[in-house]
C-alpha cells in the first residue's frame, strides 16, 4: 500500500515536470491521472488498490462514531434509571486478529465505547478479557463486537 501511494506521488510530480507548471492544481491533476493508471494496473500489485483501504479506514471511523453515540445513550439510560438492575462481569473475547497494532486498535475501540472495557490480553494474543457493564447477554456482546469492530479492522488490514 505504501508503495502505491509513493508511486502516485512520484507520478504527480512527473506530471508537474512534464507540464512545467508547479501549482497545486497541476499536482492534483497529475495525482488524478496517476490514480487512474494505478487503478487500471491494480492487478499488477501484490496488495489491493489502495483507495479501497482508505475507504475501509473511513468506514472504521464512521462505525466508531456511530457506536460511541449509541452506547453513550445506553449508559445514560442506565445511569438515570432509579434502580440499578445491571449485572457487571468479565467475559473472554476470542479474537482472530494477529498483528500487534490490530489488537491494540480493537482493544482501544472496545474501551472507548462505554459499557465495555478491556481488562487484559492473554499472553498469546488470542483472547481479550472484556469487562462489561451488563453481562446478561455476553454472547450477544461478543457477536456485536465481532461484526462491527473486528470486521472493520480486518477490512483495513487485509
Amino acid at each position, binding site marked *: 500500500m505504501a508503495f502505491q501511494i509513493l508511486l502516485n506521488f512520484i507520478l504527480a510530480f512527473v506530471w508537474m515536470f512534464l507540464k512545467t507548471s508547479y501549482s497545486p492544481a497541476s499536482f492534483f491533476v497529475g495525482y488524478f491521472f496517476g490514480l487512474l*493508471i494505478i487503478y*487500471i494496473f491494480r492487478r499488477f500489485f501484490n496488495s489491493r488498490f489502495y483507495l479501497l483501504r482508505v475507504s475501509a479506514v473511513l468506514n472504521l471511523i464512521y462505525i466508531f462514531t456511530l457506536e460511541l453515540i449509541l452506547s453513550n445513550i445506553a449508559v445514560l439510560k442506565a445511569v438515570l434509571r432509579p434502580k440499578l438492575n445491571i449485572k457487571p462481569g468479565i467475559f473472554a473475547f476470542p479474537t482472530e486478529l494477529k498483528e500487534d497494532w490490530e489488537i491494540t486498535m480493537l482493544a482501544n475501540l472496545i474501551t472507548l465505547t462505554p459499557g465495555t472495557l478491556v481488562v487484559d490480553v492473554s499472553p498469546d494474543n488470542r483472547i481479550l478479557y472484556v469487562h462489561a457493564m451488563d453481562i446478561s447477554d455476553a454472547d450477544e456482546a461478543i457477536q456485536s463486537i465481532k461484526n462491527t469492530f473486528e470486521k472493520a479492522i480486518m477490512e483495513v488490514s487485509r
Partner: protein
Amino acid sequence: MKTNDIILQTVTKFTLFVIILFSIHLFFAGHYYPGGGFIGGLMTSGAIVLLLLAFDIKTVKMILPVDYLKVVAVGLLFAIGTGAGALFFDKPFLTHAYTYAYLPLLGKTSLHTAVLFDTGVFLVVIGVTMTIIQTIGESE
C-alpha cells in the same frame, strides 16, 4: 535455460507508469503543442509492449483483462458519435464545438469536442497495435 528477468521486471514496474503518464500528457497536449491521440495511443501501447517483454502474455492478460477488438469498436463509436452529435444541432457532420469553462481546480479550461474524437483515435490506435502484437506473439 530460463534467465532471471528480475532487473527488467522491477524497472518495468516503475517505468510503465511514467510512460503511460507521458502518453496522457501527449494526448492532452495535442491541441496546442505537438502530440495528440495517435502518438498518445502508440506510446500507451508501447508501455504495454514493454510489459509484454518483461512478463509473458498470460501475466499481461491477467493484469489487463481487455479485449482489444472491443477497444477498437469503442474508439470508433467515440469518433462516429462526436461526428454525429453535430447533426443534432443542424450543423454538418463532424462540426466541432468548444467553450471555455472555469472549473474549480483547473481554472480556465477550454472544453472542445475534438478531445472526444481524439479519445476515439487514442483507443483505436491502442486496440489495433495490441491486437497485431498479441496475434503475432500467440501464434507458434
